[in-house]
């Protein structure tokens, strides 16, 4: 074997072109791993919504509350189920809710989509995970709203004591709530009737049903799905949010991997050009190695390994860069619900390993043709060079 330090030092000897190539490879690996970390972060941000005793009831076939409709009568029928839990006031914990999309200003001329949830009397009681962190709940029959914690500060008015404007009305902010980092923290909660009339929505979007215990959830879901009096379907609340998260995360993953793939073609080309140049400037050295008795295969392997080293360096650089995104927090559109969600990048060992392999693989691929040329050099021509 041609020693590895020969390759390492040869790369170092031409550190400008090596450096530029490594940065190029690193950028692609950065995009690749950052996107995967992002999809991960989204999944953990959105999937953490939901309570094990709760069931979200939607119109059959609806993939999200936004495209679902549930009639008032159906909600009334749901309250008669014997396994539904009761609130402190003794009333069944069934909350018919209207979910609409708002456009709120978000700094300067920017706007962002936000989910508004028109709540009913039982909405807070049915979701113990949702807790006020300041202010109070909106009073029924008024335009008062409570903000999810991660919306606070997105615009000057998005704060306790501020006043939102949408649907040609004013909506004073009277409370801020947390939901253990889950999806509700990106929502605006308002009175269901007021929100419904402001947006011209008669029917509910969904009904949230809280059962006496998580053990009743499966049986209740079956009863809802089988009930001939309506065409509704129930989903355990955690599963509902996990589905929301995974379709967005999958979308981001697919898009990100596609973009990485396209960029990687450029990076592989860069590695190829660098390695062709390495081979060209070292023809005499390679000829000497062949003369001394190194086989074609050894020369081929040596160039491929050198290129893989280049790729591995890019992989390390890109992975380190991606790790730095841990300190970035972003908000973007949930393409399923078209609402803003807030989340971070969350790295895993598998993603970092994948980044290294991806970088090394690109280097390896870029080195193949230059290595083939190097191994096919005529010794005599090479020695004359």
């Amino acid at each position: 074997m041609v020693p590895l330090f020969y390759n390492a030092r040869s790369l170092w000897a031409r550190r400008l072109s090596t450096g530029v190539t490594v940065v190029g490879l690193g950028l692609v690996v950065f995009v690749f791993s950052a996107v995967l970390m992002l999809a991960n972060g989204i999944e953990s941000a959105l999937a953490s919504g939901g309570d094990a005793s709760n069931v979200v009831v939607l119109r059959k076939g609806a993939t999200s509350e936004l495209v679902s409709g549930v009639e008032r009568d159906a909600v009334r029928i749901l309250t008669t189920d014997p396994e539904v839990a009761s609130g402190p006031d003794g009333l069944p914990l069934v909350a018919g809710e209207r979910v609409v999309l708002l456009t709120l200003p978000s700094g300067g001329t920017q706007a962002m989509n936000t989910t508004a949830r028109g709540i009913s009397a039982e909405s807070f009681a049915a979701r113990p995970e949702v807790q006020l962190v300041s202010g109070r709940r909106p009073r029924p029959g008024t335009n008062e709203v409570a903000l999810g914690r991660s919306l606070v500060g997105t615009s000057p008015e998005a704060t306790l004591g501020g006043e939102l404007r949408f649907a040609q009305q004013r909506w004073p902010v009277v409370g801020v709530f947390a939901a253990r980092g889950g999806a509700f923290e990106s929502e605006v909660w308002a009175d269901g009737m007021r929100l419904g009339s402001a947006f011209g929505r008669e029917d509910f979007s969904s009904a949230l049903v809280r059962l006496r215990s998580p053990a009743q959830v499966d049986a209740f879901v079956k009863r809802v799905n089988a009930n001939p009096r309506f065409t509704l379907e129930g989903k355990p609340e955690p599963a509902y949010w996990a589905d929301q998260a995974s379709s967005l995360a999958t979308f981001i993953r697919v898009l990100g991997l596609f973009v990485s793939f396209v960029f990687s073609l450029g990076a592989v080309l860069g590695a190829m050009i660098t390695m062709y140049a390495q081979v060209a400037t070292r023809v005499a050295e390679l000829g000497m190695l062949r003369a001394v008795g190194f086989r074609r295969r050894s020369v081929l392997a040596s160039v491929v390994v050198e290129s893989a080293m280049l790729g591995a360096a890019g992989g390390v650089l890109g992975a380190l860069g991606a790790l730095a995104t841990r300190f970035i927090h972003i908000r973007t559109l949930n393409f399923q619900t078209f609402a803003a969600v807030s989340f971070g990048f969350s790295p895993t060992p598998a993603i970092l390993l994948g980044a290294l392999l991806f970088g090394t693989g690109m280097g390896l691929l870029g080195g193949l043709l230059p290595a083939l040329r190097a191994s096919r050099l005529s010794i005599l021509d090479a020695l004359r060079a």
Partner: protein
Amino acid sequence: MREEPLPAPPPMVRLRGVSKTYRRGTVEVPVLAAVDLTIDAGAFEAFMGPSGSGKSTLLNLISGLDQPTTGIAEVAGRDLAQMDDRELSDWRAAHVGFVFQLYNLIPVLTAAENVELPLLLTPLTRGERRRHVAAALELVGLTHRVGHRPPQLSGGEQQRVAIARAIVSDPDLIIADEPTGDLDRKAAEAVLDLFGVLHRDLKKTLVMVTHDPHAAERAGRVHQLDKGVLQ
């Protein structure tokens, strides 16, 4: 039985009717014509002749870097024409040490690392390799330069490193194509003195091409080559 003389050892190099023709497009360029040549093991022989007369080509055929168009080339007991590229590589590693006019050292490796390269093709351990390298560098008088890289060495020193590389794996045959062509008088003498040591003390077979009559004087026999014909 005991009194009978030992049979003569087989020659190191035996060329029979060797010719070499290069093809440039459709034009055939004859470079060597019907060369017959025998070089005994342990000999030190030099080739001289005008530029383009085929000296390097002849050396390449002897050292297994190239193969004859016609004829038989037997070197170190093997018929080179019968071997493929891979076998030739292994054969060169085992039997031939090369000294080039321009040294052909790797600039990013130290003197010791350059000398070690041929040993990487042997089953020697790291420690054994280190000992062989130290011995070879001592022989060429460069013990104090082991950690230096070629750009930090003079031409003469670089060529001595190259000689250490050529002998480190203890090959039978040392091939040198104009080894002093780029050196001044003093450095050239040092290199030729070393060749003398390899020949006399280590019993190596040396085959050298040179333009320099002083260098040729050191050889036991000098062949003249003219337009591809051995005189």
